[in-house]
């Protein structure tokens, strides 16, 4: 169990810059997630930590030891591949025992450890099966056991749930969390699914086109995004382009369409901003210390356990989400509607430069 430090990691593939100077500090024993859309560099970062690719520049530390160019085989950062990469010509036992045999452990010790690992993943009694005789979820567990049994310094998981069906995904998610807590191991987890990332992680790094946009706990990332990208990537949200029209210390007034919102917190330099409002923070009834804006109802969408009201304000559409039927009782398209948001739930961020 070590902490992992990445300093200014740069990696190019031909002409394209995959990683543009990544800095990360993953603490010992935490479950740390690299989250981002495909092509953001999260898998490349993981492969570089595993020693399967090497950065063009930058340094990687495991604890105090520099491992930047240490071969994968000597690193102890074990990767569980997205496709599980189980060897089809070996039994479950041989797959799991592979790393132990390389470490020349005595036979009975290997047996003991493999049994321990299979017990950990709840696949006792499957030792003699071949991978093709296992279901997707079971293959996934074997891949994890094979990695855990060599007692890695860091466990790396590359989109581990993406090949599983929805139900199994939830089950494996808590399973991974349980194993991580039980062993207290440092885990670096890669996913493109923000919901999965929030549910499982101690901390998340949100990545976009080769850079880290923000690092923080799921709550921090969700509630106080630092950039427009992070705000829009973390779930369905309203991102409204606006202009700062007045500044008063760390409070500003912004304008979009002909709506003016006063007293919002913003310290950025640029006057081109976006106003980020989570749909579930919008109320349709007056509340304390709120900003409000009035437009017409464009659409009402019924999702079962919640309802979304799309309001049209000039040319801007804003979505409000409510679980209370009473709030929208009698509301119909084309009617006038007023949205209320608590002032502190309105996040103003500099507009992303394209």
């Amino acid at each position, binding site marked *: 169990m070590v902490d992992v430090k990445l300093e200014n990691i740069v990696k190019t593939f031909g002409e394209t810059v995959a990683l543009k100077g990544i800095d990360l500090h993953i603490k010992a024993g935490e479950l740390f997630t690299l989250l981002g859309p495909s092509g953001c560099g999260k898998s490349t970062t993981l492969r570089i930590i595993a020693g399967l690719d090497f950065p063009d520049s930058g340094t990687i530390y495991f604890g105090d030891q520099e491992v930047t*160019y240490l*071969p*994968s085989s000597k690193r102890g950062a074990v990767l569980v591949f997205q496709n599980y990469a189980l060897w089809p010509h070996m039994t479950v036992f041989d797959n799991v025992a592979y790393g132990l045999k*390389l470490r020349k452990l005595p036979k009975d010790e290997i047996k003991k450890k493999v049994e321990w690992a299979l017990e950990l993943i709840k696949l006792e009694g499957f030792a003699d099966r071949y991978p093709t005789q296992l279901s997707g979820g079971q293959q996934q567990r074997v891949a994890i056991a094979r990695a855990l049994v060599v007692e890695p310094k860091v466990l790396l998981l590359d989109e581990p749930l993406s090949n599983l069906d929805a139900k199994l995904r939830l089950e494996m998610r808590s399973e991974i969390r349980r194993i991580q807590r039980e062993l207290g191991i440092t885990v670096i987890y890669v996913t493109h699914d923000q919901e999965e990332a929030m549910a499982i992680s101690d901390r998340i790094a949100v990545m976009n086109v080769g850079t880290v946009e923000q690092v923080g706990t799921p709550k921090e990332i969700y509630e106080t995004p630092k950039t427009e990208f992070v705000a829009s990537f973390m779930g369905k949200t309203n991102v409204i382009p606006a202009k700062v029209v007045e500044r008063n210390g760390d409070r500003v007034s912004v304008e979009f369409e002909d709506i003016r919102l006063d007293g919002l917190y913003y310290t950025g330099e640029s006057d081109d901003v976006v106003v980020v409002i989570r749909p579930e923070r919008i109320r349709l009834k007056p509340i304390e210390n709120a900003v409000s804006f009035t437009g017409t109802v464009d659409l009402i969408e019924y999702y079962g356990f919640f309802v979304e009201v799309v309001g049209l304000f000039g040319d801007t559409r804003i979505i409000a989400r409510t679980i209370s039927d009473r709030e929208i009782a009698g509301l119909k398209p084309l009617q006038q509607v007023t949205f209320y948001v608590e002032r502190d739930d309105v996040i103003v961020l500099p507009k992303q430069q394209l």
Partner: protein
Amino acid sequence: MKVSKWSERLFGTPLFDPVVTTSFLFPLLYLVAFLIIPVLAMLAIAFQYNGQFSLHWFTSLASDYYISFHPEGEFYKLITMPTGEQVYYIQGWDFGVILNSLLVSISVMILTTILGTVFAFVMARYDFPGKDIVRILLFVPLLVTPFVNVFIVKKMFLPAGLINWVFHDILHIFPHPIWIDGLVGVIVAQTLTYYPIVYLNAYASFINIDPTLEEQAENLGSGGLHLFRTVTFPLALPGIAAGATLVGIFSLEDLAAPIVFQGNGLARKLMSFQIYSAFTSGFNVGSPQLAALALIMLTIAIMMFLGIRKYVSLRQYAMLSKGGRWKPRVAKPKPWQAFLIYFVVLPVLFLSIFPQIGVVLLAFSEQWGDTTWPSGFTLKHIQSIITQPDIERVIINSVMYSTVAIVVIILLSLTASYASSRFKKSKLGPVLDSLSTIPIAVPGIVIAMSYFFFFAKVFPDTPLDPTNLLGFNPAMVLILAYSIRRLPFAARSISAGIQQVHISLEEVALNLGASRWKALTGILIPLILLNLLGGAMLSFVYCMSETSVGITLGSINPEYYPITARMVELITGSVGGTHLTAALGVFLMVVQIIAIVLANVITKQRYSFIGLT
């Protein structure tokens, strides 16, 4: 641990690793030493005259003997046989050695394409009673019996041969019997020998077309010939063209047909035969003019090869199939189609397998002179395989050469395929790729000639020196030639195996602490073992029946003859020799059948020993 920029550039991995380095360097150095240097050294001779650089030897080829735009002689003529019977004697025109070779090659390409495509389309798209038998019969022309199958083709088209028996004697379609000889004979023989190559490629292409592409076209109103012309054929064309080009190259370098038809002077006027005959008649290979001719032949073959590579890579249509069921388009033929299948396609098929049938008949018959069918049944020719010491010796020789060769072939193709499919960032990868496929386009006779020069120069007065005649032992030279010539095909099937093993299976082993060597021997090789075994077996078959080098460098010292060297001696020599050649042909067929059946059983995949499927 240091990263090495040059290791990354050369071998595609920043961590220097002996296994990776060897995988690149072993096949590369082998090919440079035993293909590039010998061929270049020989070609250098073609550019020298009086010790200076000169195009003299090339301009010396600009005579009517080599290139003539005014063809000599008649394409066919009506001649009177000693029996008084009149016969159409068909031999072709003489455009000179170089143009003859080109025209023969192009004719064979066209004919094999028609034959191969029609057979493939019928087999891929129609379901008719007897199809399973046809499927097995189509396998027969694939069996390689050097020289003797051409000998049977020649017999079929003699005045008393099978063709005239059917079309003149029985059906009375021909007003006079025909006698096909000379260049036309070569074309017919090569067409019947090589059309399976186009067939296999075309069949694979038709089978791999996403049925929805054709269904959509039908849905939009296309059908019949229009559908074939606008959708089916264009999609299959890259595969068909690749097969046809391979046939063109094989035709260019073929020696069996010109040797068997050499009684007619026209059949001798082909580049391959010219080089071959100079080789065997007193080993006049020192002639720079021949080196120039070899260079022209090599250039034509390489241009064809590069042309098709470019064309196919431009038109490699990825079939964009998004799941769904893949229902093969197999239909019952309409009555007129059934008529064509039973009364045109199947008779032509029978015609094309007759050479192999004829080889068996010849091997088991007492006598087969100028008659349609042989007479007298005997086992003595087959028995002489084990009783006649000279026959026994050539078989043992060939088995030894081939056994060593396949070990080399497997090592070469395994390392080359591993290097180029696993370390794609390497700058050496594309070089290795091209070098290991280029032997397809290097005629065997060119390799033989260049080895002759090379080994005489580098190892004079040793057993490796071909000019040492009876002191010469061809074992090493033959093994080198076999391994180089077979490499592209073996490497291709092994590459296909490696590509089916996802790279993460090796990466996870490395990641868990394995060395490259462990990951290669413990993970990759066990996973592609069946491909390796299949490749080894098909390579063995190829080596056993290799001709060009076997009948040149192999036929210097009788003690060390491979099978084909003895076969060519027998078929061009004494009268009874043809029966013995046929017996050796039957022996080779049996070896091939065993190897192919084993390869198919072991790998559970369809293989042909040409390595094209």
